[in-house]
């Protein structure tokens, strides 16, 4: 999460104080990402140093010190908003690794293992859905944050469903990986 760019976005609406920026940041992100005030001021100092924001009083340091975005801050924000987040190569996914590692382990029922993780994920989704259900209809920011988490978790559940179906169609005594490696195998580069 880029606090730096979130602050630039808030300042693009007009000049604001540090404390005000912290409150608005939290309310606009559904209060899911708390921010301490020290972090806000440190980030503002760096933004000022880099010429992306300017303050009323560059020498002062009080809570009433106002900040505004500069033209180069506006360009930086615009470029950041349009830059795709890092999605390639795929992240190293702990759950994928657990299921892959479990395959040859004697005494581990991989279907039971998949169900343990599926239940945990669905319970987490229930928590988030209940948060959304109890929230005000007008709290769009919270709904957006919760939706993002729900779609992410749903994708993992769907991966588990697909993994279970693929594994169920395997012959029982299939040797795992060692003799089944094809002569040429595409490699997926994975983020470390």
């Amino acid at each position, binding site marked *: 999460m880029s606090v730096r760019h979130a602050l630039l976005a808030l300042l693009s609406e007009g000049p604001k104080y540090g404390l005000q920026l912290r409150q608005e940041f939290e309310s606009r992100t559904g209060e899911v990402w708390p*921010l301490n005030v020290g972090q806000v001021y440190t980030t503002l100092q760096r933004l000022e140093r880099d010429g992306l924001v300017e303050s009323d009083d560059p020498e002062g340091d009080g809570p009433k010190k106002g900040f505004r975005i500069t033209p180069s801050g506006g360009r930086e924000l615009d470029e950041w908003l349009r830059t795709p987040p890092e999605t390639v190569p795929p992240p190293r996914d702990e759950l994928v690794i657990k299921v892959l590692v479990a395959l040859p382990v004697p005494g581990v029922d991989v279907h039971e293992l998949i169900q343990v993780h599926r*239940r945990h994920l669905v319970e987490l989704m229930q928590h988030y859905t209940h948060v959304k259900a109890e929230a005000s209809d007008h709290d769009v920011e919270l709904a957006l944050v919760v939706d993002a988490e729900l779609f992410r978790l749903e994708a993992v559940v769907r991966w588990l469903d697909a993994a279970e179906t693929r594994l169920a169609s395997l012959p029982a005594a299939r040797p795992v990986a060692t003799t089944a490696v094809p002569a040429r195998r595409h490699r997926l580069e994975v983020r470390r």
Partner: protein
Amino acid sequence: MTALLELRRVSKVYGSGPALVQALFEVDLTVDGGELVAVMGPSGSGKSTLLTIAGSLEEPSAGEVLVDGSALAGMTRNQRARLRRRLIGYVFQDFNLLAGLTAVENVALPLELDGLGQHAARAAGLTALEELGLGDQADRFPDELSGGERQRIAIARAVVGDRRLLLADEPTGALDSVNGEAVMRLLRAACKRGVAGVVVTHDAQLASWADRVVFLRDGRAVDQTARPPGPESLLMPRPNR
């Protein structure tokens, strides 16, 4: 809390010999009034069979089904049909509203079929629509409504009168996620008013609206989620990232 639906060691077998299919095997399921339960499983896991047996549209091969405390096995065909009309509402993926009737006429229809006079049925239909915040759509025809709105009317029809057991088969399957959410909010609201709801689905997002999720695999209830704690538990301050 009264159990509105109880399945006790319910099994269902189709066919025989080499063509035998064990659709359900000794499934136990209890759903109380006010509770929304999702039954989640892949295609062929027995979800729809479970729902048709719970709704007395099909009989189990073994085990017992009780609706509002009454065992279905001891009832005549007519008694079962009457119980279905009085107590059980169904919601299907494709809405099943009659095109020539307005929303309120669609909602009132099951009561009229059950012998209630037209005026009383319409009044009960309006009450059901209003309780679910749909009163302003009462006089619209299905083709004047969006898919999401039609499904919400179908939910009002499923809980009209004294219906207290609501059975839904993939009720948001044909809708986009935001309209699907509106349908699930309404289902949840109906359950909060005391209805017992069972939703069968393969969709984790839809299932996550339930108080409890039961996982069905190859006809067996293999697992279930714990009832979630209050929403505040997720909004505790977390370390900054």
